[in-house]
């Protein structure tokens, strides 16, 4: 960026105009609208129960404590087992990582075929695959649970990985296909004449320019799969429940006093990974979504 590129244009020389002030007020209000609930969650999670009972919803904690976090992570009661969120958190990790990797890699391969190795009927095939983007989760619950049963994968993390991989494919295929369409066909033709085949072109020519769309696919899939509740609750067993299901069970556990601070800490724990993924790679996400032609 050239020098002075960051200088704000205020319309009427230096100083803030009325319109500008109005604009900032509106933006701050909108940001507050989304941030205040999160703020409440964070401050509640570091209060003691005593503090919560006697204080106000948005009052500052009188005493800062991480007790609720420690309890939520290690010993809160989830249903009848008082083991905390940690096991479920790792369940989610064990489910998300392979699902994201598999669905992204297969999506990349699909996109490559649908854009650069079209075959008779490939467009029809692609439209059917896209239909998958629009099928509501609820519709496939019963058939999928039967299928998982046949595969002897019911109530296992492997089963969840399979479901999420399949359900993610329409999206990842669409991402990669639309990205690869922007790679000029002449480059692929040149590679064919240079003697490269299907996999060598993918590996040496196509994948090296695919970083932006990989970021998009990984963020999208991580968010979708980590945040999923319905598949998690329907297809998991007692040892394979993901963190979203655990959070639900923790909050709904009815024995004893309602511990708001633990609930909040648990909710933040459940939400942190997707927040983290977005913060570290959000810049690339936007860039990938708007990535234009790959210029030769």
């Amino acid at each position, binding site marked *: 960026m050239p020098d002075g590129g960051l200088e704000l244009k205020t319309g009427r020389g230096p100083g803030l105009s009325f319109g500008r002030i109005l604009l900032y007020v509106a933006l701050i209000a909108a940001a507050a609208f989304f941030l205040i609930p999160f703020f409440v969650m964070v401050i509640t999670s570091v209060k003691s129960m005593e503090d919560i009972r006697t204080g106000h919803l948005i009052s500052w904690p009188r005493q800062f404590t991480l007790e609720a976090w420690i309890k939520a992570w290690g010993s809160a009661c989830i249903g009848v087992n008082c083991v905390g969120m940690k096991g479920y958190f790792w369940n989610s990790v064990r489910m998300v990582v392979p699902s994201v990797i598999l669905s992204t890699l297969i999506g990349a391969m699909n996109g490559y075929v649908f854009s650069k190795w079209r075959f008779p009927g490939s467009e029809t095939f692609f439209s059917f695959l896209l239909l998958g983007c629009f099928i509501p989760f609820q519709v496939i619950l019963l058939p999928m649970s039967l299928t998982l049963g046949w595969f002897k994968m019911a109530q296992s993390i492997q089963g969840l990985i399979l479901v999420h991989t399949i359900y993610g494919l329409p999206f990842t295929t669409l991402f990669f296909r639309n990205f690869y369409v922007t790679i*000029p066909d*002449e*480059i692929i*033709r*040149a*590679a*064919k*004449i*240079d*003697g*490269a085949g299907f996999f*060598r072109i993918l590996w*040496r*020519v196509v994948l*090296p*320019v695919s970083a932006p769309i990989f970021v998009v696919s990984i963020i999208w899939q991580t968010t979708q799969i980590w945040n999923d509740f319905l598949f998690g609750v329907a297809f998991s067993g007692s040892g394979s429940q993901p963190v979203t299901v655990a959070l639900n069970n923790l909050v709904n556990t009815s024995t004893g006093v309602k511990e708001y601070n633990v609930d909040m800490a648990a909710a933040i724990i459940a939400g942190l990974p997707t927040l983290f993924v977005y913060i570290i790679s959000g810049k690339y996400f936007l860039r990938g979504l708007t990535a234009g032609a*790959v*210029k*030769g």
Partner: protein
Amino acid sequence: MASLTISGIRKSFGSEEVLKGVSLSVASGEFLVLVGPSGCGKSTLLNLIAGLETISAGEIRIGDRVVNNVRPKDRDIAMVFQSYALYPNMNVRQNLAFGLETRGVPKARIKETIERVANMLQIEELLDRRPRQLSGGQRQRVAMGRALARDPAIFLFDEPLSNLDAKLRVEMRTEIKLLHQRIKTTIVYVTHDQIEALTLADRIAVMNDGIIHQFDTPQQVYDNPANLFVAGFIGSPSMNFIPCRLVEQNGRKGAVLKAGSGKSFFLPVERPGLSLQQWLGREVILGIRPEQIAGGFHEQEGNPQIHEIECPVEVIEPTGPDTLVFVNINGREVTCRVNPKAAKAPGQAMKLMVDMSKALLFDPQSEQRIGA
């Protein structure tokens, strides 16, 4: 180095036939240019030779081998694309090496080849750059280098100069010609630019609507076009086509031209070996190139083929060395290429010398050249 023989090639995309029976043969070391307007099938023909598309009917031979069902990489060809098609993620060195690596050429040989090619094209200092750091002309050079590195039997060029600006295009054109003179490999070159075709080719195939209209040397294609399409496509500005009736005056056959002023002139059409007896009294199209209508010719004294006419000038277009003068003859706009000093202003009458020695007659029905 190899010859190329194409016989009866047809190609359809769905119900649309883009090549309707194309045959030609290229001798080993020859420079063939396929030229025609866009959509004429020339690029499709090149892709068929490359093996990037499959042919619907016919046969392609490279040397003695029928390659109809041979994959592109096994045809021993290299191709230069209009968009250069360099691999964006690789530097120039890697771009040049890619085709050799896939063929399992030993590392030392690859290094040696790259050095030789880079030296030949003067791109040594670019070897570590990425394509996006190169100018259009440099990319073009690298694309040719990638083809050269492979040392193929046949080079295929698909409109390689179309993306360059005018000045660079002329420079690269000369370089390609020099390159061919040095390596003497068979080249098939596709372009829509007739000047590129004339300057580069040993032989030109003029294509339109999926067929070859003429397959001959540049001079033949220019001087003796087979039909109206070739005559109009080759040459810039285009050949003038003047509809007229063939008549006989004083024992000489010729055309009567009526200038915009109303004056009529008789121009005899006499070419050795051209019998026009059966065309007497019939409508024909007189084809005459702009440079054959001038203010005067060097060796015009006593030349029986040069005739004077007088026409009012309608428009003039100075091009620098010559000025194009537009006049009206037989209701058609006719372009004349005259010396800038001789050009008259619009509205004035101008004496023009017409060199009929290269004038052509075409059949208005079949559009074929009479006597072709």
